[in-house]
Structure formats: structure tokens, C-alpha cells
């Protein structure tokens, strides 16, 4: 990334929060919204702008589950592991996805198409077990449905949709 453009973008985000106390987490939220993760170069620039040591920025990023240090896949698959989903088979869904995508939770597939993660609770316990791909929530998912669901998001399916 071009350092100049980057600096301008980060400054734009940081400026709107500059005068507020305890702004670091909110700034990081906006950065992750923009880039999908918190790139190291951004943290470096941010450290200068906010006059906060880089170590403190990393301390916060690594403490909170929500922040990422690596780019996410094209589609993030979040499997809910809240209690209701766990009881109704959330762990089995996760196992099936690990098997089909050949990744562990927190990893991205080699082709960069999918990022698999566990989430605490999506707040749709009535629909358990639940998984979310991008912004779309799938409720009452059965293990055997998973192959069909992710097939919609595969590279081939997307190429076909464009064609």
C-alpha cells in the first residue's frame, strides 16, 4: 500500500476521534471495518498520529478476539458456539466445515475464498444451530446441508454467477 494514501486514510479515521478520551478501540474498529483487518503498516501510522506506543496498540489488538492481524478470506464463515447452538450440534457443524475446507478455526483456505471462525453467540438462539456466511445467517443447519451451503460461495459458483 502506498504510504501517502494510507497515511491520509488513517488520519481521516483518527481525526474524527482525536479529541475523545479512550478512543483507541473505536479507531481500531473503524480501521478493521475499512481494511477487513488491522495491517501492521496501519498500526505504525496510527501510533504516530495518536502518539501511542505501537506496543500498546498491539496489546489491545491481541487482547480482543474481534480484531484481526491477518486479512480475512473472501467469505467469513462464523459458526455459532453459544450454548444453545452447541447443544444442538454446533460442534458437529464446525467439524464438518473443518473437514470440507481443510482448515482449523481462525484459518483461511489456501485459495483465500473462506475464513473459518467460531463465534460466541450470534443472538439467534431460537434458530440454533446457526452459522453465518458474510452477513447471511443460516438457521437450523444440519450437517448434511453444509456442503450445499458453501457450494454457493465457491469460486466456480461465483464465476458462473458473473457469467
Amino acid at each position, binding site marked *: 500500500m502506498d504510504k501517502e494514501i494510507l497515511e491520509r486514510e488513517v488520519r481521516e479515521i483518527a481525526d474524527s476521534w482525536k479529541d475523545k478520551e479512550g478512543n483507541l478501540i473505536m479507531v481500531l474498529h473503524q480501521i478493521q471495518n475499512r481494511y477487513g483487518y488491522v495491517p501492521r503498516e496501519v498500526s505504525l501510522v496510527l501510533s504516530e498520529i495518536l502518539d501511542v506506543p505501537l506496543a500498546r496498540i498491539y496489546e489491545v489488538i491481541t487482547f480482543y478476539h474481534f480484531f484481526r492481524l491477518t486479512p480475512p478470506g473472501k467469505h467469513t464463515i462464523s459458526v455459532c458456539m453459544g450454548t444453545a447452538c452447541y447443544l444442538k450440534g454446533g460442534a458437529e457443524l464446525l467439524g464438518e466445515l473443518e473437514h470440507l475446507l481443510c482448515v482449523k478455526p481462525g484459518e483461511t483456505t489456501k485459495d483465500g475464498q473462506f475464513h473459518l471462525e467460531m463465534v460466541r453467540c*450470534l*443472538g*439467534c*438462539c*431460537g*434458530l440454533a444451530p*446457526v452459522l453465518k456466511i458474510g452477513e447471511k*445467517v443460516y*438457521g437450523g443447519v444440519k450437517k448434511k446441508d453444509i456442503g450445499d451451503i458453501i457450494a454457493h460461495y465457491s469460486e466456480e459458483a461465483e464465476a458462473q454467477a458473473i457469467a
Partner: protein
Amino acid sequence: MIKMTKKDLDATKQKYAEADRNWIKVGFSTCGIAAGAKEVYDTLVEESRKHSADVEIKKCGCVGMCSAEPLVEVHVKNMPTVFYGKVDKEVATKIMEKHVCGKMLVNDKIYDLKLN
């Protein structure tokens, strides 16, 4: 910007008080949306236009019957106010045709009713 006072509150309260008219409320919280509330809402709006139905369609929060989402509450004058659950496009169409226009409750889809 307006500076509201107690008097303005009372005036607003009067103006927006729920008049006795026909309405439909669609549960539009995370769970409802995840279960497909948007399609249901769109269908209801489209169908009501088609039938020129005298009904107000509103988006609301969650009443709590999560396992029956998407949930639609229907109030038609002189009929019991009921909650339809697990509503899809087809049921939404029926609600508009049968319940709102035909004054007949739809079978097999009512999950609760509101008693006054």
C-alpha cells in the same frame, strides 16, 4: 433542532396514539431478519398494494417467540389480533388475501393471540 417540552410530548403522544385501524407488524430484529423477515415484509407491502388494502404495515422489534420467526402480527378490526409464525412468501400472500381482505384467519400458522 426543536426543543421539546412536556407539552410537546403530550401533543406528540396524542397525535401518534394508536388509532383503531388495521395494521400488520413484522418482527424485524436480528432473529427475525435471519429467518427471512425482509422477504415477508416486501411481499406484504407488494400484496397490499395489489389489493389496495386498508392496512398499515410496520417493522417492529422482537416479541420473543424466536423459534417461530419470521413473525407477523395482524390486527384487523372486529377480528382477534393474532401472531402468524414461520411465515414465508406464500403465507404472507395468504395473510393479505384471506385475513386482511377476506376477513378469514389463515389455518395452521397462528402461534399466539393477543387478548385485550
